[in-house]
């Protein structure tokens, strides 16, 4: 499997935006794209700069989502600075320091649809209704995480600085 970071594949994401058909396609498949009250989710370069909701993300709620193996599922694949959760996975990079390596906008795109950055990634696209067949009845037509949950997780990840083990950025 190819393992590329967002920065190496930034060119791909830019092409997505520049190619009209693709931009529309990506937009149409995002969860809540039919919600006409909000502007469509726009990818700029390797990021989604604008928050998906008007309510700022809550890092504490975000941490709870990341720690929850049946909601965020994150710790199945990633380790992170959440010491009370044992048995963390190692399919993806350690989430410690994710907020130092990425802007909030980059984290948002990585969560909403990491496949826009790396089409081969195994990380699920959390806020794009997956086009894959055979979605289980309980999950059909739904994104893995709702827009506000994405904002909460982004807010939490942004607190994970290289210079802190746990807690908000200094």
């Amino acid at each position: 499997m190819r393992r590329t970071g967002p920065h190496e594949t930034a060119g791909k994401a830019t092409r997505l935006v520049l190619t009209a058909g693709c931009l529309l396609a990506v937009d149409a498949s995002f969860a809540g794209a039919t919600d006409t009250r909000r502007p469509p989710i726009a990818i700029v370069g390797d990021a989604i700069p604008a928050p998906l909701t008007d309510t700022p993300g809550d890092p504490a709620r975000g941490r709870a989502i990341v720690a929850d193996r049946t909601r965020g599922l994150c710790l199945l694949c990633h380790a992170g600075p959440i010491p009370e959760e044992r048995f963390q996975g190692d399919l993806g990079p350690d989430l410690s320091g994710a907020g130092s390596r990425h802007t909030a906008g980059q984290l948002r795109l990585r969560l909403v649809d990491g496949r826009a950055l790396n089409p081969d990634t195994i990380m699920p696209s959390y806020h794009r209704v997956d086009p894959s067949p055979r979605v289980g009845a309980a999950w059909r037509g739904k994104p893995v995480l709702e827009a506000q949950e994405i904002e909460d997780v982004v807010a939490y990840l942004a607190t994970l600085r290289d210079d802190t083990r746990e807690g908000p950025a200094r």
Partner: protein
Amino acid sequence: MRRLAAAALGAFASLAAVADEIPQAERRSGFDAMSAETRAMQVDDTANPGLLWVQDGADLWTRAPASGRPACAGCHGEAATLRGVAARYPAFDEASGAAIDLQGRINHCRREHQGDPPYGHESRELLALSAYLGFQSRGLPIAPPRDPRLDPARAQGAALFRERIGQLGLSCAACHDDNHGRRLGAATIPQGHPTGYPLYRLEWQGLGSVQRRLRNCMTGMRAEPFAYGSAEFVALERYLMDRAAPLPIETPAVRP
């Protein structure tokens, strides 16, 4: 706009990497990654709970069905004459013109030759008889038949193995070809070889078929599992056995 979307998504799918199959010399059973205690439990026949089902299977093998027609042993004789069968199944079934797995074959015999209703999937009887038959091949290398009539099932199984499915958009290959040996939460991802089925899983507190295992994996992918006995599952089983050869049969294995 919808059509554009569909076309673009098609392009996305075709970009997905074609997973590399594990070379024969690097194939490893899930057995190798287990704790010493669980391995000891599997190899010691007095400790392996699967042997209870094997014993039940031996009884069923010689017991005449309610219809009064012959028992399995009445047609096949000693079960030892079926050594090697579990190592080559799924096989091509002339009657249906399709691939059939061992459980399907047992139920076929029951219907056609014993005039009794087929056993339910995951029933004690079906698990016992398939454990008994698998046990006859214990230690033999998996030996896929060369029969070209199985090619459609092989191709379908290989395609299903690589297809992204479910809400999480994962494929079997994403875990078992590309990430075996890594940790998914508490579990070490095995290469995913069906060497030991039906097997005793500590988590199940009982014996289960390979299809039960596959349904567990599919539920984890938030996908709608294939139905027990479906052509899709038989095709996946055929592909998984090709992909596992020449690892030895371990039935009844023990897994965490």
